[in-house]
């Protein structure tokens, strides 16, 4: 499958871990360029990672759906991010789950974690408009 990461992903140094059939997991290393207060990740960098994970999951779901060869465009409507734990000096992973994929709207949730997947450092809910030609 194809996951198009934008130039912005390079600032976050995001890479993609793909397991067959599963939505992709994005990995962001700890670096000065994603720091907020000293020693902690910036909330904006975590949000950026979560949004990319959500879009990657949505692209994955759209490909699985077949989409009849068309290439639907994805437009973000809004995002709500909850921050649960500070992001420390270690890699951060994020993955999205498409809760509902309709013809015009997709609801996606994404979580970001460091040590254990069930101890998220942040989570986001997003609504996307899907434009099918």
């Amino acid at each position, binding site marked *: 499958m194809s996951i*198009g990461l*934008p*130039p*912005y992903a*390079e*600032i*976050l140094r995001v890479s993609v871990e793909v397991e067959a059939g599963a939505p992709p997991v994005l990995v962001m290393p700890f670096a*000065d*360029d*994603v*720091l*907020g*207060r000293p020693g902690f*990740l*910036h*909330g*904006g*960098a975590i*949000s*950026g*990672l979560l*949004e*990319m994970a959500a879009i990657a999951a949505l692209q994955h779901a759209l490909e699985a759906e077949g989409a009849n060869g068309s290439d639907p465009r994805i*437009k*973000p*409507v*809004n*995002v*709500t*991010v*909850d*921050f649960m734990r*500070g992001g420390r000096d270690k890699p951060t992973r994020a993955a999205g789950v498409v809760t509902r994929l309709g013809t015009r709207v997709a609801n996606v949730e994404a979580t970001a974690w460091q040590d254990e997947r069930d101890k998220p450092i942040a989570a986001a809910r997003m609504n996307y408009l899907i434009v099918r030609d």
Partner: protein
Amino acid sequence: MAGFDPQWFATRGFGGHGAALGMRYHAHGDDWAELALPYDERLIGDPASGVIASGPIITMMDMATSLAIWIKRNAFVPHATLDLRVDYLRPATPGKTVIGRGECYRITRSIAFVRGQAHDGDPNDPLAHVAGTFMVVGDVAGMGLNRRIEA
């Protein structure tokens, strides 16, 4: 440090992620702050259109609302973002600087409530709207905040 001067804060540079994005101070008032994010191809989220990604806008709004809180508290009190909601009203115009205005409309001992908007030239034609909350980290009572907040 007595008081909080966002311009002085900004001249030290935002460091970290803010510096990586090229974020700059723009203006401030009693309970608000504006930051500027000049257009940069490194920030692009949609290569086909050249529109910048939403991540840098969230980062700017997180920082602008943070500054608004420190201005309102008149002190640099470390805090953490509890939650932040962003409505994307329209895409940012490629090539234009995005201005992010954060406002702190309510503070309590430990929580600050914020809202803000981002635009790319015309404040009456915003591209994003945000609402969020921040929480003071560490010892609230030991920070000498009570008197100021309850006043």
